[in-house]
Every structure is written in structure tokens, then in C-alpha cells.
């Protein structure tokens, strides 16, 4: 990186450190923070969307829709996460390619599952084997985000379902008495009021999501924990320009600081959000705000 790094064996001290901390592996490590943060940033709203959909479906008066919502919540909540991250992604990938096969393969007579092998024609591969590495990575990223959103969406659905039930019945009845349609009651009264009840559960989920990102490595994405372990592991002289002993403790300490800082910032933001959402609500927090103002 720097001009003085040309011969790593000749330097020491801070100069060595400045070179060591800018090696290719370290640059990858720094980028993986961006990856992890963007996974969280995309997953959180998507999971909320899945959760909202699941909760609305579970509350629906249309029986099949209700079963679908309840089934989704129960299936994901009842199965260990790790199963989703190991099994579901391969199944999802195969499902996509199987569907694609129906459209692009010429010969549909060949069996797809032979023993434990999954075989589709090369044209049906998603992404194609010829695709640029960046496309392959983007596809993996997409699968990872989708899987995370699906899993966390089910938990969010349960939280939102509970929150919708927690909105005082009197509020909804009043809205109905004003002649609002069920759709209007839902949109104007129920949804705006439910967030304060959902927030404690959702903030829990958010913090769990932040800390669940090491599971990303199972999905083929090299996250911060992977790189901390890879870089921190002892490196021998010979093939490595910067040999060193086991430094994993230091890298994990750095991750600890990162996670703690991220959690702290989240708590502050969530605390502010709670105060805002409690405003004017018939909850303890809302009451306290009213009394303070009076």
C-alpha cells in the first residue's frame, strides 16, 4: 500500500504495523464491515415488511390467508435458525434453478435429483457459471438477505400480531362509531397506535439481528467474524510477508468494541423513538408525558 512496505522483513514497529494493517486481507476485513452493515440495513426493513404481511395475514378473516400467515410464523419460529441457514438456502437455490429449468432447458426428460445430486442444464444455473464473480457475489448476497428477512420476518410478524391485539378495543370501536370502514379503522387507528406496543419486541429483534450476522458465513458471505478469525490466526513465515502468532484475541476485542458501540447507538435511537411513539398514547409512558406537560 505505502511505498515503505516494499520489503516487510526490513521494517518494524509502527512502520510494520502501518503496512500490516493495510494488507489485502485487512482491506477485505474493512470492507466486510460495509457488507455486514448493508445486510442489516436491507434486511431490517424487509423483515419488517414480511412481518407486517405475516401479521395482517394471520389476523385475516379469510381462512386460507390466516392459515398461511399462522403457518409461516409457526414454521419459522419452530425451526432452529441454523437449519434455515444451512438447508433453506440450498433448497431455495435449487427451487429457483428448477423453476428456471422449465423455461430454458431443451431436454426436460432428464431427472433433476439423482441420488444426492442436483442436475439442471448449464443454461438454467442461476447465476450462470459464466457470470462475473461480482454477479455471483451479488446473488449470494441476495439469497442471504432474503433468508435473514424471512427468518426475522416471522418473529416480527408475531410481535406485530401481538401489538395489533394490544391496541385498546375502545379506540377501534370509537372509530367504527364514526362510520369508518374496517380498512380505514385499520389504516388510521390500528396501525398508527400499534407501534408503541410493538417497539420493545422489535428492538429486541433488531439487536439480535445485529449479532446474528456471523451466520452470514454459512451463506457464503465473508463477514467480519470470518475475516477476524482468518487474519488473526497464526501466520507462518515463507508464504506470508507478515508472519505473526495468534492475534485472534485482539481482532475479537475489536469486534467486541464494534458490536458494543453499535448496540449502544441502537439503544439511544430506540429510546428516542419510544418517547416519540408514546406521545399521546394510553400507556404508562404516554401518561407520564401528559403529566409532565401539565
Amino acid at each position, binding site marked *: 500500500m505505502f511505498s515503505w512496505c516494499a520489503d516487510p522483513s526490513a521494517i518494524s514497529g509502527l512502520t510494520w504495523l502501518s503496512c500490516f494493517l493495510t494488507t489485502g486481507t485487512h482491506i477485505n476485513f474493512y470492507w466486510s464491515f460495509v457488507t455486514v452493515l448493508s445486510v442489516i440495513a436491507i434486511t431490517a426493513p424487509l423483515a419488517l415488511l414480511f412481518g407486517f404481511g405475516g401479521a395482517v395475514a394471520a389476523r385475516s378473516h379469510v381462512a386460507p390467508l390466516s392459515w398461511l400467515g399462522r403457518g409461516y410464523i409457526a414454521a419459522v419460529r419452530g425451526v432452529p435458525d441454523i437449519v434455515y441457514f444451512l438447508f433453506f438456502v440450498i433448497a431455495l437455490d435449487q427451487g429457483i434453478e428448477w423453476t428456471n429449468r422449465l423455461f430454458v432447458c431443451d431436454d426436460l426428460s432428464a431427472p433433476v435429483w439423482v441420488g444426492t445430486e442436483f*442436475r439442471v442444464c448449464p443454461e438454467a444455473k442461476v447465476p*450462470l457459471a*459464466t457470470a462475473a464473480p461480482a454477479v*455471483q457475489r451479488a446473488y449470494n448476497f441476495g439469497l442471504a438477505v432474503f433468508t435473514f428477512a424471512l427468518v426475522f420476518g416471522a418473529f416480527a410478524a408475531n410481535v406485530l400480531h401481538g401489538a395489533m391485539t394490544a391496541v385498546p378495543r375502545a379506540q377501534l370501536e370509537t372509530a367504527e362509531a364514526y362510520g369508518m370502514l374496517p380498512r380505514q379503522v385499520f389504516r388510521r387507528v390500528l396501525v398508527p397506535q400499534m407501534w408503541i406496543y410493538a417497539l420493545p419486541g422489535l428492538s429486541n429483534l433488531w439487536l439480535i439481528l445485529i449479532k446474528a450476522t456471523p451466520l452470514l458465513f454459512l451463506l457464503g458471505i465473508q463477514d467480519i467474524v470470518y475475516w477476524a478469525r482468518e487474519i488473526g490466526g497464526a501466520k*507462518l513465515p515463507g508464504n506470508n*510477508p507478515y508472519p505473526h502468532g495468534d492475534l485472534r484475541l485482539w481482532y475479537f476485542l475489536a469486534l467486541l468494541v464494534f458490536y458494543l458501540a453499535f448496540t449502544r447507538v441502537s439503544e439511544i435511537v430506540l429510546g428516542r423513538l419510544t418517547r416519540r411513539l408514546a406521545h399521546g398514547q394510553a400507556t404508562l409512558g404516554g401518561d407520564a408525558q401528559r403529566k409532565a406537560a401539565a
Partner: protein
Amino acid sequence: MKTLILTTALVALTAGAALAQEVVRIGTEGAYEPYNFIDQATGELTGFEIELGNELCSRAGLTCEFVQNAWDSIIPNLQSGNYDMIMAGMSITPEREQVITFTQNYVPPASSVYVGLSADANIGEGGVVAAQTGTIQAGFVAESGATLLEFATPDETVAAVRNGEADAVFADGEYLLPIVEGSGGELAQVGEPVQLGGGVGIGLRDSDEELKAKMDAAITAMKEDGSLNAMLEKWFGANVTRF
């Protein structure tokens, strides 16, 4: 205009399909120096198998691309078609041959060694021996009477010995001996080397006969002209077992 776009898309698709035959993706672990590891300076995959894989592919007229995958799921992802070959220091064993197929070996059957903090570490009954999950060495330890301590990566198995969690680690000599050498007397080889497996080969799906034949031919050619031996020497040192 619409037809024009459609035709272009179709042409692009068929062109891609014709090319798709030529690109072979190779799965590797990227954590088993010097077989396959991450280059510290560039952050890219490198190692004996990366160089060998690219050479074999260019001899077979294929374009190859390495994909990093965790060891745990390296065989399921091969079968699922996420890549077409495994080159990850994987020994040829009867158990693995039941699920995938191997080319002839490109690393001769090599010795596995025990390494501990001292040369008299307990590796038998009552001892605790670390090995990487799903390796032939792990299977061997499990049957040796010692308590097997499994780790997901090779690096952690060595760390377990260093911090006293295990009495010894059991792995390929090519991987462990340079570590012993570099430890400055902290680590030592324990007991005699053990011969395990049929060497390291390329793992393929059972149905990929054609690709297997191409790779076998390329490996044979490299064995005959001595270039494989030269590559082995380059990565494993002058004392390596040759063909």
C-alpha cells in the same frame, strides 16, 4: 423494436449457454496453507491447489474460477451444483467415494502427524486430540481411543494445542510440520507419522464423467512431464513425497 430486443436477448442467452460449458468452478476452503489459503498481501486465494487447478484447466482448455466455501458444506454445495470440482486438500477415502467421485491423486498419499507441546504428549487412551471436522484424521482419532476434539478450521486445531485445550493435534504433515518448524520449539512432533487415505484428488459429482476424464488426462500429463513434481516442491519444500 420489441422483436429486435427479444432477438438480441435470445442471442445473448444462447451465446452465454455455449460459453457455459467451458467455465468450470472449483470449490476450495482457503484456510489450509500451503494447499489453499488467502494471500496476506492481496487478500486473494492462493496456494498449491490454486496454481495447480489453473494449470490443469489451461491444459484441458477450460476456464476455471475458484470459489471459497466453508469445509462443512463443501460436498453438499458440489452436489447442489454451486461449483463443479473440489480442490481443497481432500484425501481420497472410501467413505467420500460413496457420495462423490475422485480423479487420480495429485498429491501422493502422505503421512499425517501428531503434534503436541512436547514429544511425549499423550495421544492414546485418555489423551485429547484435536482434528478438523470431517477429515480422515478426525475419523482416525475417533477410533484410536483418544478423545476427539473437533474444530471447524485447521487453524483452530493448532490453537487448541497451544492453549492447552488438547494434548495434541492430528493433521496432514504438510500442514503441521511447517508450523512446528516456525514455532521455535514450542511445538513438537509426537510419535511416528501415520499413513492415511489414497492421497489428495479432485472431487467431482458422480455424473461428471467427461470432466473427470479431462482432469485425469491433465494430471497424467503433468505427472509425466515432471511439472507436478516441480509444483509440489515449490509449495511443500524439497522433502516432499514425489510421484
